[in-house]
């Protein structure tokens, strides 16, 4: 079934909202246990409530910045990255959206991602390896793929999920660590509190892999195929992207900052090997599909 751009955008916005609601409920549950364990009472609950609201606002407005900082991306200066800026500008003319902000990350693996909450507040980030390896047509193909993610609001869902999962992993580590460190303390109240903290840690330890699996489901492989085809359509040329993917596929070293929270943002998996196969469809298959396209 063919879906229109508007249906895709609507679906991405709904999914983002749903995801934030589910996560807020989870956060409130954990907060409740926490308040209960430390006996903070009503004030503690109000605090947790405010925290959850604030957290959602931060995630919605700033997750793009967090994602960019977490991979070590820096703004690309116009005078140093003239060709990159030009290509981004051209493709945004073709896609009919404003020119996104342009970032680069110092990394030899050729890769790229887009982030932001809507086309008016979007960023594209490429690795220095990508710039070195690709010619103008290939770069154009990669940027067009990212532009398609921006245009249909994939970036909102993918970035928000990434940041939320990042927090879950962080919380899990904090709670599990407090479980070990708490061992030296004495007193019945403390034991009680530690017991509940431990339970939270265990819940998170169980929940986090499930959440990671959920991301894989939400960001189905279909999304990447779609961005490939749509990107090729934007610039009316499937060969640039196909040839770029060939080069990306032949590079086997993993990225230095690869993590579960941001892996799904990239055009191809930042990990080496087949372990994280599931976030991205096999490159050979993507190339084959691209080459079968005609406009």
């Amino acid at each position, binding site marked *: 079934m063919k879906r229109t751009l508007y249906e895709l955008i609507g679906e991405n916005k709904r999914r983002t909202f749903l995801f934030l609601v589910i996560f807020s409920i989870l956060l409130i549950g954990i907060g409740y246990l926490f308040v209960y364990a430390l006996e903070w009472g009503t004030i503690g609950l109000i605090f947790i409530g405010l925290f959850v609201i604030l957290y959602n606002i931060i995630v919605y407005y700033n997750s793009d910045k967090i994602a960019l900082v977490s991979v070590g991306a820096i703004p690309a200066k116009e005078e140093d990255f003239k060709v990159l800026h*030009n290509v981004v*500008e*051209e493709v945004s003319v073709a896609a009919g959206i404003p020119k996104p902000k342009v970032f680069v990350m110092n990394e030899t693996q050729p890769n790229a991602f887009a982030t932001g909450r809507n086309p008016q507040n979007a960023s594209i980030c490429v690795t220095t390896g990508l710039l070195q390896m690709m010619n103008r*047509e290939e770069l*154009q193909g990669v940027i067009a793929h990212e532009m398609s993610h921006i245009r249909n609001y994939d970036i909102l869902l993918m970035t928000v999920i990434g940041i939320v999962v990042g927090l879950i992993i962080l919380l899990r580590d904090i709670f599990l660590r407090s479980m070990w460190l708490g061992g030296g303390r004495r007193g019945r109240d403390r034991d009680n509190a530690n017991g509940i903290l431990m339970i939270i840690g265990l819940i998170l330890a169980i929940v986090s892999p499930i959440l990671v699996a959920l991301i894989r489901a939400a960001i189905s492989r279909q999304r990447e195929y779609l961005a490939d085809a749509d990107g090729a359509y934007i610039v009316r*040329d499937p060969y640039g992207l196909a040839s770029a993917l060939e080069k990306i596929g032949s590079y086997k070293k993993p990225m230095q900052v690869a993590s579960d929270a941001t892996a799904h943002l990239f055009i191809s998996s930042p990990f080496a090997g087949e372990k994280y196969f599931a976030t991205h469809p096999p490159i050979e298959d993507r190339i084959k599909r691209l080459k079968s396209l005609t406009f």
Partner: protein
Amino acid sequence: MLTWIILLIVAVIVFWFIGTYNMFITLKNRVKNAWAQIDVQLKRRYDLIPNLVETVKGYAKHEREVFENVTELRTRAMSASGPKEVGEANNMLTGALKTLFAVAENYPELKANENFLKLQEELTNTENKIAFSRQFYNDIVMRYNMSQEKIPAAIVARIMGLTPSEYYPVPEEERGTVKVSF
């Protein structure tokens, strides 16, 4: 009763007329806007060309014909009017520029010249933007022209005295793809 029915019908027609009228105004402005976007790029290109010719001349003195051709086509493109004429002139200019860049391939020193490389990148940039905005422009012109032909909107178009807009011609060798590289 009958007066009410007649009034109702008249009201529906009036509202339909206003709606259609406004749709045409919107489309007309979009066509104008899309054309303005192409125009900006064309102007930028006209500005870049003399610079390019000067730079290349310094290295490849014997290719006078190529320079003259480019300069002449630029003048012709600048004096053309209407999307069709401007488009055709510019497509010819694109061809001439391709020849110029092909000639430049024979001069290694020129290809190493920083200024030349900068101009080449700038021209590729404008060229691609022209191609992409052309795509956008032609899509809108198609919608505008088609709505003028369809009944019953055609009646409103006739009353407004609208005429179909010209398409920006797509060069023969580029039908299907819009990729340009020098």
